[in-house]
């Protein structure tokens, strides 16, 4: 009997592990913060930051590319969920590395719960300083939603002498907002699926409702990016993918 019970418990635990395929939530309390985490901590002082990992399917990558208006080739992204001290979602931050002219820059793009840009920060810029726009230029991205206006010579003014940097930054903002929306769409689908599933007794050992076999408390539900909400103010609501017929690149 003891053999049977022990086996059943192990089966349940194994099933639990197989089912719990949600994005990994890393516990970093036991290691030194990375440079990226330090950057987020400075951008959002006093907030709690949770690093998550989101693996994208091929369909999601294509969808992100359509929304961004350019190829999206990352298979994994790392949304950093930022919460205030009271637990309210403040923003989701992404890091993006890309080429400006011949060298790279790294931008931190923070996205508000409504899916608009909270801010853009330059964390590394390897090109000559002359190609770096002034800090005031980056402020025009604040409050921008993904749409036709998030483009140079439309909602975003160009910069004399830094055209390539302006293009790289604008493309980055579009890319981040696109993947943020894709993850929000995924979260909506998963939430809709859960609501549609008839409520059943939780099986023994399921992580969401019970402690793990070794006694540690269950992890919090993987937050991921906030669900899509129409942006406030004059910002346009999220758009369908941009038509790009006849475009030359």
């Amino acid at each position, binding site marked *: 009997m003891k053999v049977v019970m022990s086996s059943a418990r192990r089966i349940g635990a194994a099933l639990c592990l197989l089912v719990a395929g949600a994005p990994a939530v890393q516990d970093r309390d036991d290691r030194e913060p990375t*440079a990226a985490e330090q950057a987020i901590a400075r951008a959002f002082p006093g907030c709690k930051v949770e690093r998550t990992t989101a693996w994208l399917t091929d369909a999601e990558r294509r969808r992100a590319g359509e929304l961004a208006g350019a190829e999206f080739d990352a298979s994994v992204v790392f949304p950093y969920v930022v919460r205030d001290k009271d637990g309210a979602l403040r923003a989701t931050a992404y890091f993006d590395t890309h080429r400006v002219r011949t060298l790279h820059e790294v931008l931190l793009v923070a996205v508000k719960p409504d899916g608009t840009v909270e801010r853009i920060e330059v964390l590394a810029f390897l090109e000559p300083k002359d190609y770096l726009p002034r800090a005031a230029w980056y402020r025009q991205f604040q409050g921008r939603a993904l749409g036709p206006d998030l483009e140079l010579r439309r909602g975003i003014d160009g910069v004399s002498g830094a055209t390539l940097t302006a293009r790289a930054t604008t493309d980055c903002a579009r890319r981040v907002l696109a993947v943020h929306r894709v993850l929000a769409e995924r979260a909506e689908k998963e939430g809709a699926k859960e609501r549609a599933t008839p409520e059943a007794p939780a099986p023994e050992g399921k992580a969401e409702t019970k402690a793990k076999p070794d006694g540690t408390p269950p992890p919090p539900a993987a937050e991921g990016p906030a669900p899509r909400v129409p942006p406030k103010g004059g910002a346009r609501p999220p758009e369908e993918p941009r038509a790009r017929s006849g475009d030359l*690149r």
Partner: protein
Amino acid sequence: MRFGRNKLNPTSVGARSRSRSASTPVRGLVALVAAAAPATAQDPSLEQRVQQLEQQNAELQRRLGAVAEEIEGFRLRDIVPGVGESRFGLGPAASKVYAKEQGLSIGGYGEVLFTQNSGATDVLDAQRLITYFGYKFSDRWVFNSEIEFEHGSTGGGGTVAIEFAYVDYLWREELAFRAGFLLMPMGLVNELHEPISFLPASRPQTETRIIPSTWREIGAGIFGEAGGFAYKLFGVGGLDGEDFSDAGIRGGRQSGARAQADDFAAVARLDWVGTDGLLLGASAYHGDAGQDHLDGAVRITDMSTTVVDVHAEYRTGPWVLRGLYATAVVEDAGTFNTRTGANLARRMQGWYVEGGVDVLALAGRETRQALTPFVRYEQVDTQAWMPGGFAPVRARDNEILTVGLNWKPIEQIVFKFDYERWIRGDDRANVLMGFVF
């Protein structure tokens, strides 16, 4: 890696042996238990498989996490936790984060031009190819340079020249140092003359004859930004007035080519950059240009030369508007003319306004192309005020109206089509291809 899939499970073998030797009641009890949980008590391979799956899944999760960390670490390898003060132009979150210490940056631009002249030979010209090399020795020490190849070949009258080559020490945002072969910080075109930076095919005459771009001299100085203002202040080698003419001061550029260094000059620039899309400022140059040229034992003249300009540029959405006024004053122009037979003006002046709108963006077309019709109007007179006894050359007083179309299929490539109407001089039609990389 396989977790013992081919190994016999000693527990399952022992259980079968014990069941064969057990007494009948025990055998019956085992049978009852087996009936209650047949999949586990009587099928050891299933338990083995579950164990293996547990282990494999745990290992996969571990590896996946490690791979994800490696990927993120690689992507963000250029961020280095730093200590110290803010970097130039970076926001608060980056105040302690620096870039990698070293890096070679390569770039360049070029122009190929066709000009149809109404009263002269039409011309096809590989106008220029510029290669840029920059090297960041550290976050504070940076080298920038450009080499210019003009007009196709030195065998056909073309030139190869150093456009600039200088070292910066980036001490603070408010104060940095520069030394070497410097671009003069004057006007709108002299420091920023890539083909995608201005709309027409040709540079304005005002910024060719009065601010003689591309104007560069050897010197050193300071620059920085504070409170919405950007400034530059350099000491440089002076012009050589011997080659001034009725066409302007362009011939006086020494360009670091074993330059006469008997006279030096100072140049300063101040811009308001605190408003998005707006550049508003002024610059001034002053220095002697006599360079101790002698007529017998007598220095011809000091030829004190002053050039001043005010400039503005505004970009908002699809609109771009820019304008400039410049004037140059040469003291002792009369003395110079008497000694040399030239017809140099005491004062010359010019101004222009230029504007355009990206009609594709204006129409809300979802494209990264830009199609910008534009117009430039200019007046330039290098003989505005003459010294006593000398008459102006009328042909040097000009008005030029340029209209055209500027097409960028992508940000880095531009095709320009324009027509220049000269009040005095040959009209010309231009087709130019330009690129930046």
